[in-house]
């Protein structure tokens, strides 16, 4: 008897999406009602994420991309975002949406189902984040994209700043799956005064393609 697999995002947004798609056993929210230039929060939990740990981490080239030398640096190539976390560890996020198979190497772990993955887009997102964390998203010594690791709404997170200019403001972040619903509640409450609203995956793809 065939077993039907269903993969469930750890969060649910208020309201109904305009368009969804069943992909890789996930129900992907593709579109919500558009609300102008107001900041948006997007659930990307279905996008594949790997953790890489190795004492000789430089020997790996996931997706044909070299891992950055310095912790805190990120590289985005071929639709793959690689974030160097510390001397021995990096996280690999597949932003293109391609369903890549994980390398046959014990250094790699698929953490897609272990974490929540969110995007914040819009020029006022940093007014929202400053209500939830003391992390410095405008460190002049760092050039986007860069990685910050620290508490966001008191939860340890990995946060990648894809852009921190008014024209191009975007943050991606992950935390443990168990915090997901409380995390999204905190983000939506902090963003209420800026009309933060849910958006679908298409909004993120459009932003990346720009």
């Amino acid at each position, binding site marked *: 008897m065939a077993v039907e697999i269903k993969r469930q995002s750890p969060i649910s947004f208020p309201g109904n999406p305009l368009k969804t798609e069943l992909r890789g056993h996930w129900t992907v929210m593709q579109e919500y009602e558009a609300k102008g230039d107001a900041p948006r929060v997007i659930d990307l939990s279905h996008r594949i994420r790997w953790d890489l740990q190795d004492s000789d981490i430089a020997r790996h080239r996931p997706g044909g991309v070299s891992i950055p030398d310095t*912790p*805190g640096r990120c590289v985005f190539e071929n639709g793959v975002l690689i974030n160097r*976390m*510390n*001397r021995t*560890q990096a996280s690999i996020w597949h932003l293109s949406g391609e369903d890549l198979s994980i390398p046959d190497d014990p250094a790699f772990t698929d953490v897609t189902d272990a974490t929540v993955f969110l995007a914040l887009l819009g020029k006022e997102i940093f007014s929202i984040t400053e209500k939830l964390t*003391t992390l410095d998203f405008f460190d002049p010594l760092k050039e986007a994209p860069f990685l*910050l*690791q*620290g*508490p966001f709404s008191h939860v*340890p997170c990995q946060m990648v700043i894809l852009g921190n200019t008014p024209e191009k403001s975007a943050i991606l972040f992950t935390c443990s799956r168990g915090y997901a619903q409380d995390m999204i509640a905190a983000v939506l409450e902090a963003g209420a005064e800026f009309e933060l609203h849910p958006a679908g995956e298409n909004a993120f793809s459009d932003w990346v393609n720009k």
Partner: protein
Amino acid sequence: MALTLTCPVCGKRNGYEFRYGGEEKGPRPDEAGITPRSWCEYVHMNQCVAGIQKEWWCHKDGCGVWFTTHRDTTCNLEVDKPEAQS
């Protein structure tokens, strides 16, 4: 609590992001011929310095790195390169 610590990866951060790992006691003693008493002293006995001591910390809410730093225990402030000052 005013303690801030300087993570070698993430830079200066709030002390609440870190986990204390104890005094720096030097390398683990050679297990060949070690007595229960000397092992117990290595594991459990501390100097409890009133002043600057070298100690281990883990950036548990950040990058997860273990590192050593110097802290003045009388004022609970991180001290920058005390060897260079002495």
